[in-house]
């Protein structure tokens, strides 16, 4: 156990169960499917007249998706304030990795209609074969790319 979980396993499992409870409570109360990537598209519908962004799936979900995203920020803040002694953490990943990685992941998640939360948590939770295929594919490419970036000297 020590070798595959060098920082322990309890916080990972507990955190994961909380993520599942959050998505489950959202579903029980509102019937909504709580993936995260679509907020990066639906929010554009307020400022872009491009027909793609004016699709009903974006204009009808943009309000709750922004509120859900605001909740993410508040929840992480609550953890830091009440359970982490106010200790913040800034990543030391280089800016070009953050920008390029964000851009490529944003493009891919839109194209695939899902990300880690959408395809893994919601997609596998609803037993959807296309999501299982998507998860296997993006875990595969991510593992290859992360190791290539490391070999090339990235953080």
């Amino acid at each position, binding site marked *: 156990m020590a070798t595959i*979980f060098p*920082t322990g*396993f309890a*916080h*990972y499992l507990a*955190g*994961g169960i909380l*993520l*599942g*409870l*959050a998505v*489950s409570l*959202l*579903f*029980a*109360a*509102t*019937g909504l499917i709580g993936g*995260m990537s679509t907020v990066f598209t639906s929010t*554009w519908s307020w400022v872009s007249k491009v027909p793609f962004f004016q699709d009903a799936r974006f204009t009808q979900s943009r*309000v709750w998706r922004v509120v859900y995203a*605001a*909740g*993410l*920020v508040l*929840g992480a803040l*609550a953890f*830091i304030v009440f359970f982490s002694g106010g200790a*913040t*953490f800034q990543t030391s*990943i280089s800016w070009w990795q*953050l*920008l390029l*990685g*964000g851009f*490529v*992941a*944003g493009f*891919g*998640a*839109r*194209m*695939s*209609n899902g*990300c880690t939360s959408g*395809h*893994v*948590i919601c*997609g596998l*939770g*609803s037993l*959807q074969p296309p999501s299982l*295929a*998507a998860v296997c*594919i*993006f875990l595969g*490419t*991510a*593992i290859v790319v*992360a190791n290539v970036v490391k070999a090339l000297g990235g953080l």
Partner: protein
Amino acid sequence: MKTSHLLVVLLCGALFGFGLAASTMIRPEVVLSFLRFKDFGLLLVLGGAAAVTLIAYQLLPRLMKKPLLAENFGKHPSVMNRDTLVGAAIFGIGWGISGVCPGPAIAGLGAGNWPLLISVAGLFAGAYVQGRWFGNAN
């Protein structure tokens, strides 16, 4: 959507953000250490989350006629097509470059992980370029 609905959405989002912070997923370094086989914790996070969600998604529609505050349980069907699979491959490339994916990028801001604003900008830009020039209005 009613204010009471949105309050519940906010609380569920907060629980999600709390879970991302508690599991250290808001640290891209931890995600990269999984992708480089140094720490398999990410599998516990995703496995735990998917297992709980699986139970809720399968049981709730059988136990309740409708959600507490709405008329219907939603569905978000994935489609087995080129976009889903190629898009997943591209998403994984981006995830592997930075260790950042959409949920942790947003939640990290609440934990003062300001450099993630760069990733949030990248995610918005990537989604825009895809939708604007490559999107199918389906």
